[in-house]
C-alpha cells in the first residue's frame, strides 16, 4: 500500500542504500532514517530555509525534494560540513559574531551563506542580505549574520 523505492546515495561522504516511501521528502529521510537531525524542518513549504542543504553541489530545500529523487545523488548536510572542515571559518565567524541564537535556522543559514562565500560573493552587505533573503531567522535580526559573512569574505581575501 505504501509505495517504496530503494535508493542509493552518498551523504556526507558515506554511501547508503535504503528503501524509502516515495512520498517522503529528503529532509525527513535524512533526519528520520539516517539520523542526521542537523537539518531542520521549519515550514515544509519551502519558505523558511531551515532545511537548506547541498545536493549535487547546489544548495536546495530539503523539504521540496523527494528522497526518491536523491537516488544517486551526493548530499552534504551541516554534519558533513562540520566533519570535513568545509566552511570552518564561516562557523567560527558565526560563533564569534553570535550570528545565531536559538540555532534552529543556523544549518540552513550556514548552507546559504556558504553558497554565497564559495560562489565568489563580495563583502557587500546588501548583496549578502539579498542572497540570504530566503532564510528566515527570528532571533538575530540578521545583522550579526551579515557581519559574520563579511568577516569570512575579508578573511579569505587576506589569506
Amino acid at each position, binding site marked *: *500500500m505504501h509505495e517504496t523505492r530503494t535508493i542509493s546515495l552518498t551523504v556526507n561522504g558515506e554511501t547508503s542504500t535504503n528503501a524509502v*516511501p516515495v*512520498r*517522503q521528502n529528503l529532509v525527513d529521510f535524512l*533526519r*528520520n532514517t539516517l*539520523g*542526521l*537531525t*542537523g*537539518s*531542520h*524542518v*521549519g*515550514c*515544509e*513549504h519551502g*519558505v*523558511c530555509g*531551515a532545511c537548506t542543504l547541498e545536493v549535487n553541489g547546489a544548495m536546495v530545500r530539503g523539504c521540496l525534494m523527494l528522497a526518491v529523487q536523491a537516488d544517486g545523488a551526493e548530499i552534504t*548536510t*551541516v*554534519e558533513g560540513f*562540520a566533519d570535513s572542515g568545509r566552511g570552518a571559518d564561516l*562557523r567560527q565567524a*558565526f*560563533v*564569534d559574531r*553570535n550570528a*545565531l*541564537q*536559538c*540555532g*534552529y*535556522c*543556523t*544549518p540552513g543559514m*550556514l548552507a546559504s551563506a556558504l553558497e554565497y562565500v564559495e560562489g565568489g560573493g563580495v563583502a557587500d*552587505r*546588501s548583496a*549578502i*542580505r*539579498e542572497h*540570504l*533573503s*530566503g*532564510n*528566515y*531567522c*527570528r*532571533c*538575530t*535580526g*540578521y*545583522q*550579526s*549574520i*551579515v557581519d559574520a559573512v563579511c568577516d569570512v569574505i575579508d578573511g579569505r581575501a587576506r589569506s
Partner: protein
Amino acid sequence: MSGPQTIFDKPNTYIGKSVPRADAVRLTQGRGKYVDDIQLPRMLHAAFVRSPVAHGRIVSINVSEAKAVPGVTAVFTGADFVGQVEPYVGVLSHLAGLRSAPQMPLAVDVARWTGEPLVMVVASSRAIAEDAAALVEIDIEELDPATDMERALDADAPVIHAEFGSNLAWERLVEAGNPDAAFARDDVTVVERRFRFGRHTGVTLETRASVVEYDPSERMLTYWYSGQAPHMMQFILAKHLGLPEENVRVVSQDVGGSFGIKIHTYGDDIATAAAAKILGRPVKFVADRLESFLTDIHARDHVVDGRIAVTADGKIAALAFDDVTGIGPYSMYPRTSAIEANQVLNLTGAPYLIEHYRARARVVFQNKNMMCQYRAVGHPIAMAVADGLLEDAANEIGMDVVEIRRRNLVRDDAYPTVSATGMKFDDLSHHKSLDRLVEMMDYDARRAEHARLRKEGIHRGIGLVSMVEVTNPSPMFYGIGGAPIASQDGTTIRLEAGGAIHVSSSVTEQGQGTNAILAQIAAGVFGVPLDRVKVTTGDTRSTPYGGGTWASRGAGIGGEATLQAAHALKQQVLEVAATILQSTPDKFDIVDGHVVDADGGPPRMSLSDLARTVYYRGNELPSDLSPELVATRHYRVSDFPFVFTNGAMAAEVELDPETGFVKVLNFWAVEDCGRVINPQLVDGQIRGGVVQGIGGAFYEECIYSEDGQLENATMADYLVPMAFEMPDIFVAHVETPTKTSVLGAKGAGEAGTGGAPAALMNAVNDALRPLGASIHQMPMTPERVLKALGTV
C-alpha cells in the same frame, strides 16, 4: 543588599565581557538537540483533526474509517478525554472579574475557533496519522461566529459562552487625578487618535513540539517539550492528568525560539501527554506550520482611542484612552489573556510625568485563535499610543519631538517614583538615554538633511520613542493570583572533583544566551576559567525549582541566584582551604581555578587538589569538618512588583509616496538594562527585538475573514522580516544597575519589540506629515499607506 560588591572589578571577572557562548559552537555543527530530534523505542506520532469553522456544534464524529487504517494505534475524541483530563480555566484571582470557561484538550461539544483540535489520531508515523485524520468524519452544525472584537460586545452579537451573558472577559478602569478637568482647560491642545494594532504571532522557527513517555510501572511521565517554563508544566501536567507532581519530569533541551509562544497550555500538547499515559507508549507531536499559525497564541489585536492634552510649553496635562482587545474564545491557561491589556493600562505614558490619567480596557471573547503573552506583552501598544500622541501633539504646538520629551520625562534624579497607574520605578535614566540617542544619531544634522531632501522630493522621516520595559517580575505578576508560576529562581553550583564547577539553574535557554551568562557570572564570582564551567538548565529533575524564562527575567533573577550561589560556594571552599592550609578563610581568594593568598602571590592549592582531598581523601581532614562543595541559592525580587528598564530609540525611514512602500534606513537603540553581563548577547537581544518590532510595524498580521478563517496561514503569506529589508541597527548602553540585587542586571529581551513600533510609526508620520497624511494602524502596509495618502 549585602554581598561581594567587588566582583565587577576583579581581573578575572567575565561580567561585562563579550565572550562567545559555548552553545553556539555545537549549534553551528548540527549538534543541537531539539524535540523533533528525539526518537524513542515504540514511539507513536500524533496528528489532529481541527475545526474547519470558527463556531460550530459538534453533532457527530465518526472515527471508524480512521481507526481501520493500518498503522493507526488510537483515535481520541474530546469525549474520550473526559475523566482522563481535568478541565482547565484561564483566570487569576488578582485580575478581578476575569472570567473564562473550562477548556479540554479537544473540544467536547462546541468548537470555538478555526483550528481548535477536535480529534487526535495516533499512529506509527506522522504521515499515516494524517492519512487517517483525513478519514475522520465530523458533522458540525455551524453557529454564528463573533469574530470582530469591535462588535463582540454588541447586543446582537452571538454570545460565545452562554453562561456569561456577553462576550466580555474582563474590564478595568484606571483613573488618576482629574482628567476631565485637565482636558477641559482652555490653555491646552488636545490631540485624539484611533490606533489599530494587528494580530501577530510568534512564528518560532521550531514549531511547538512535545514527546511524552509514560511508564505505567512507576506511574512516571516524562515530557520533553520545546518550552520556557518546565516547572510550570510539571505542575500543570500533574494536576490535569491526575499524577503526583513528583511523577512528572519536564525537560527542555534546545528550543528553536519561543518569544512567549511556548509558555502556555495548548490542547494538542495536553492531548499528547494524555494519549501517552493512556497508551503507555511514547507519543510525539510536532505542530506543522499550518497548525502553528492556527493555534500558537496570537498577540496584540487592539483598537485604542487615545487623547492627550498638552500645554503651550509642551507639558502633558492629561492622557486618556480606551482599549478594546479580542482574545479568542477563552482566556489562555494559566497566564490568562488579560495580562496584555493590563500592561497597556499600566505602561502607557509610564516614562512621563502625568498627573491626570484615565484608561479603560475591555477584553472580549471572539471566535478566533486565542491571544496571550508574546514578546513585549502590551509594550508596543502602550509605547505607540503614548509616544504617538506625544509626537503628534508636539507637531500641533510646533515643538520638536526631542524637546517635548525632555519637558515631560521623569528626571533621572527623581527616583524612586510612582506613576499615575501606580507603577513603582527606580534606577531609570530616561534623560541620559535620550541624550545618548540624540548624539548617536546626529539628530539635528539629520533633521536638516531631511528638510533639504524633501525639496528634492525625497520623503524621509524620523520618529522616536522613550520607553520602559517590564523585567525581573516579582510574585505580584502571577503567583499572587494563584498561578503555578514561580517568580523566584534557584541555582545550584557544585565543585567537581576535577576542579571545574557545574551550574544548574531553573532559568532556561532558548537561544538568548542564558547558559552563557550564568557561566560567566559563576566563573567570575567563584574564580575559575570560563571553560571550566558546565551548565544544566531545563530539567525539573536536576535543577532547582523556578520559573523559567519569561518577562526578561533570566539574567536579572537567574543571574542573581547564580551570583549568590557562586559566592556561597566560594566561602565554603575557602573554609576547607583554610583548614587544609591552617589559616582562616579571609586570608584566601580563588583565582583562575586555584586557591591563592588574598593579597596575591602564587597559587597555594588547585581546586582539583582541594576537591579530590575532600571527595577521596577525607582521612586528611579534621573529623569535625564536614565540607559542602555544593551551594544553592534562590532569589526573587521583593521590593518592587517589577524591575523596570528604560530605553530610547529612533527610526529613520524613507517613504515612497507613489507605492506606499517604506524603507527603514536606520535604527538606533539606547538601552539601560542595568549591569550588562555580556554586551554582545544584549546587543543581539536588542537587534533581534527591534527586527520583531519592525515585523509588527510593517509586515506581520494574522488576517481573518469575517467568518473566522485565517487567510494567511503560511509562511509565504504571513510576512515576517527577512534579511534584505532589514537595516543595520545601532545599539548603545546606559548602565544604571538596579539596587534590588547585587548583580544589578535587569532584562533586555523585549525592549526592541516593545519600543520599535512606536518609533517606526512616528517616523512614518513624520514623513507623511508634509503630504497632509497620517497613519495610526499597524502593520503599516503599502496599501494602508496609500490609503492614508488618499491614493487608493
